[in-house]
C-alpha cells in the first residue's frame, strides 16, 4: 500500500485489521490532532494521554464511521479528540474559569495580517490565552459549536459563553496586532 493513498482506501485497510494501515492513519493525523488537543489542554503528559485514548476510540469506532468524502474523516477524528479533551478536563473537576475584566472594553478592530502570522505563532497565542477564554474560543470559533452547546459542555450559561468568547477574540486580536506591528 503506497503512502499517499486517500483516506477512504486507508480506512478500508484499517477496517480489514491491517495494523500497518492503522499506523499510517496515526502518522497522518497525529500532528493535527495534537494541535487540536493542545488548544484545550496545556499539560504535555495529559495531552499524550488524551491523544492515546482518542486513537483507541477512533480505531474502535471506525466500523461505525461512514465516509462522506474528503475531510469527513479528519472532522470526525477532531470531534473525538475534542470530546476526549473535555472529558479529561471534567475528570479533574475542571470548571470553566470566568475571566472578569474590570477595565473598559475598547472597540474591537479586525486584526490585519492574520494570514501572514506563522501557524505555530497563532497556535502559541491561543495557548497563552487565559484558560476560560481559550476553551470557549476554541469550542465556538475553531470547532464550530454554538454558544448553547458550549454552555452545555462547560456547565456555564449561554451569556457567559458569549461574553468569554468576545473577550477572548478581543485579546487574540490584540496579540495578533501586536505581533504584526512588531514584525513591521
Amino acid at each position, binding site marked *: 500500500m503506497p503512502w499517499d493513498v486517500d483516506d477512504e482506501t486507508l480506512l478500508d485497510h484499517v477496517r480489514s485489521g491491517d495494523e500497518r494501515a492503522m499506523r499510517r492513519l496515526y502518522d497522518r493525523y497525529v500532528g493535527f490532532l495534537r*494541535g487540536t488537543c493542545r488548544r484545550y489542554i496545556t499539560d504535555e503528559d495529559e495531552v499524550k494521554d488524551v491523544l492515546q485514548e482518542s486513537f483507541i476510540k477512533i480505531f474502535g469506532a471506525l466500523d461505525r464511521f461512514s465516509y462522506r468524502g474528503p475531510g469527513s474523516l479528519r472532522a470526525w477524528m477532531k470531534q473525538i479528540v475534542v470530546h476526549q479533551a473535555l472529558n479529561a478536563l471534567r475528570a479533574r473537576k475542571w470548571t470553566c474559569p470566568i475571566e472578569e475584566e474590570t477595565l473598559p472594553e475598547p472597540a474591537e478592530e479586525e486584526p490585519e495580517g492574520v494570514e501572514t502570522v506563522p501557524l505555530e505563532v497563532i497556535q502559541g497565542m491561543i495557548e497563552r490565552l487565559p484558560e476560560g477564554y481559550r476553551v470557549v474560543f476554541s469550542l465556538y*470559533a475553531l470547532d464550530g459549536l454554538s454558544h448553547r452547546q458550549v454552555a452545555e459542555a462547560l456547565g456555564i450559561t449561554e451569556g457567559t459563553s458569549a461574553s468569554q468568547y468576545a473577550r477572548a477574540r478581543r485579546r487574540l486580536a490584540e496579540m495578533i496586532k501586536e505581533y504584526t506591528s512588531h514584525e513591521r
Partner: protein
Amino acid sequence: MRDRDWTERLRDRLEEVDDRPTPEESEAIWAGVVRGVRQERRRRRALLAWILLPTSIAAALLVALWWLHSPEEPLPIPADTPIVAEVAEEPIPVDKKREAAPPPEPPTPQPIRRSVTRIWTTPLVALRMPTLEAPARSITPPVLKTREKQVSLPELVYPFPPLEESDQPRHGSRLGLSLLAANGTASSRSYQGIGVHYSAPEPTCLMDSPTTGDSEAEERMRMFNQGTETEMTIRHSPALQLGLRLSYRLAPRLSLETGLLYSRRAVEVRHGSEQYYTTDGYTQHGVAIPLALQLDLWEYRGLSLYGTGGVQLEKSLSSSRTRGYSLRGEQVTESPALETSTAPLEWGARLGLGLRYRITPHSELFVEPGVTRRLTDSRLPALDRDRYLLDTALGLTYTF
C-alpha cells in the same frame, strides 16, 4: 460579520496545523494505542461470547424441547393386533405398563396408520389424539411410552354441551375434551389446549366450520342460518415483538443481528350470518429468536433507517382460546380461556423496515414494522390460514 470573517480565516489556517510530537513521544503514544486497541478487541470478544453463549444455550434448549415434543413415527402394528373399541378404563401406572408391555414386535411391511391412536411422548405427559383420517374406531396402543396425567377441566356450557374425549373419531372438524394434556401436529391442523383439542382434516377447515363441527351449538347455528348467506371473518390483532437485540457490525452498513423477544399474536374468527354467528378468539404468547442481516439505508444524527431480513425461531409459551356465539345480537362468551404450553417450535422468514434512535454509542431504540412468512404451522389453526403476518418489533439494540 467582519469579526467572524477573521476568526473563520483563522480556523481555516488552523486546519493545517501539524504539531507533531517528537519521534520518541510518538512511539510511546502509538505503543499505548496498540495495547489499548488489543485490550478493547479482547473485551468485545469476551462480551460477545458472554451474550452469545446463553443465547446459544437457550436456542439449544428450545431445539431439545422441540425434539422432545415432536411426534414419533407411528409404531408398527402387527397384523394380528386385536382392535378394541375403547381405551382401557383403568390407567395402569407407567412402570407397571412398561413391565406389562409386550416385547418389541418385528416390523411389519404395512403399518396400520389409519386406525392407530397415535401416541406422542413428552417429558411430562403422554399425548394422544385420534388420527383424523381414521375410521370410527381406535386400538389399544401396543406400547405406552411415558406417564399419563389426568387433568380436570371446566365443562363447556350451553349451547355447547359438555364434551368428552371420543374414541370414535369421525371425518370432519371436531372438538373434544381430552383427559390428557395434548400436543398437536402440523399435518393434522389441530389445536389443542390442556384438556381440549380442536381438529380438522383440511387446512381450510375454518371456512367450513370454525368451531366444533359436530357440536350441538354448531348444529343450531346451521339450523338458524339455513337459507341465509354466511361468511367468515378472520381478524388479526396487531402482532407485537418486544425485547432485546444484539447486533454485530460486519461492515460499516451491514450488521448481523440476533436477540430474544417476547412475541404476541392474536386472531379472532367469526363465522355465520349477521344474526347468528360463532366466534373463536386465539392468543399466543411466546419468545422469538431472530437471526437477520441488517442494512443501514439512511442516517441523520442519532436517527437511522434500515432494512432487515432473516429467519426467526418462535416458541409458543402459552396460548389461549375463547369461544362465543351470538343469537340475534345477544353476545355470549362461551368458554374461559384455556391455556396450553406445549407448542412446537415455529420457523418464519421475516423482512422489515425499521427506525433506530441512538441513545448511547452502543445502544439504540428501534421500532420495526415487518412481514413474517411463516414456514411451519402454528398451534393456532386460524393463524395458519394467513401465511404472511404483519407485525411490529420494538425494543433495544446493543451494537458491538
